């Protein structure tokens, strides 16, 4: 990672929308390492990401932003710290209708929040329009872990929703950076 680029990491369980979110932002078609999903119990979709997703947003003067998506299956967990290394911030995507939502939250928040030191935004997908309790539940669970981070109901198929996640994360990164400068 050089000084003219930075990295945003998308993480979360299978089927949470990481590949879709990165594709919404990336300049070129998202590089995905999809394979046939053999874990249909966790997520009923045909293909899933085995290695990583990668996208890139080029900025002016040769600057750029790298977008990485972690593999959703826990057996590829060994890749998480590699991908998280030097990330400016993390967007955690969760499937709001999955029965293991709370378990997923605990696993991924524990793995990526770095005790609140890494700027983090949580996006919850597949929520009914009148389902307000899921966001509250996740917010409360995170607070119990000492994590006071934004939790947003999103549909990653909508670019506006993905942009809201990014804007919220950028505000988190700015606040975090400012704190670092004063230490």
């Amino acid at each position, binding site marked *: 990672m050089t000084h003219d680029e930075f990295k945003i990491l998308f993480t979360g369980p299978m089927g949470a929308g990481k590949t879709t979110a990165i594709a919404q932002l990336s300049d070129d078609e998202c590089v995905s390492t999809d394979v046939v999903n053999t874990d249909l119990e966790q997520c009923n979709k045909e293909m899933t990401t085995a290695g990583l997703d990668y996208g890139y947003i080029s900025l*002016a003067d040769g600057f750029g932003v790298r977008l990485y998506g972690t593999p959703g299956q826990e057996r590829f967990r060994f890749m998480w710290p590699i991908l998280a290394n030097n990330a400016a911030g993390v967007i955690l995507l969760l499937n709001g209708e999955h029965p293991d939502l709370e378990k997923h939250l605990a696993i991924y928040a524990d793995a990526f929040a770095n005790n609140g030191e890494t700027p983090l935004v949580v996006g919850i997908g597949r929520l009914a329009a009148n389902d307000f309790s899921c*966001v509250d539940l996740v917010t409360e669970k995170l607070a119990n872990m000492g994590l006071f981070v*934004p939790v947003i109901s999103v549909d990653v198929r909508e670019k506006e929703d993905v942009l809201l996640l990014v804007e*919220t994360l950028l505000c988190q990164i*700015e606040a975090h950076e400012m704190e670092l400068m004063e230490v």
Partner: protein
Amino acid sequence: MLVKPASHRFYARPALLHALNAGTVTLSPLRPFSESVPEGMAARPLFELAWMTGAKHSDGLLPWLDPDSQFQLSRWPSAAALNKSRPLLSLCALMTRRALGRAQLQILSKCDEATFNHFLNACEISGLLVSERRRSAAQPTAVAMESQRFGGLIRGLRTRLGLS
């Protein structure tokens, strides 16, 4: 409008919700009501009513808030309440990390006075605001925000994504 504190919901017809959001309605005191919710009323989170009360139905800072205090948030408000406003998102990001004074918060978030007061009021009514009367050791400035490691990249990304 009906309020059900036990389920953290309130119910209102769309026209009233719109008026509440616009701050163009005065509510009468609540009274007990035991019948079922009439048809046509939409359920909304109670947090939203508290937020709108603070944000839309107050002028200046609430009288019991000391303007010289340092302010912090106990948690993030609902994203919907922030209406995708960058100054408000920025205030939340700053205030969930530590307590800061009004002047610093306004400079860092680039939030105008009226919006800032409404935000503090809404956080207070919603039970999210923590105020303390002490000075922080370091007073961050706008210069600090501009000279961050990622400052140029963040500005560039916002421009590139149309977030500016």
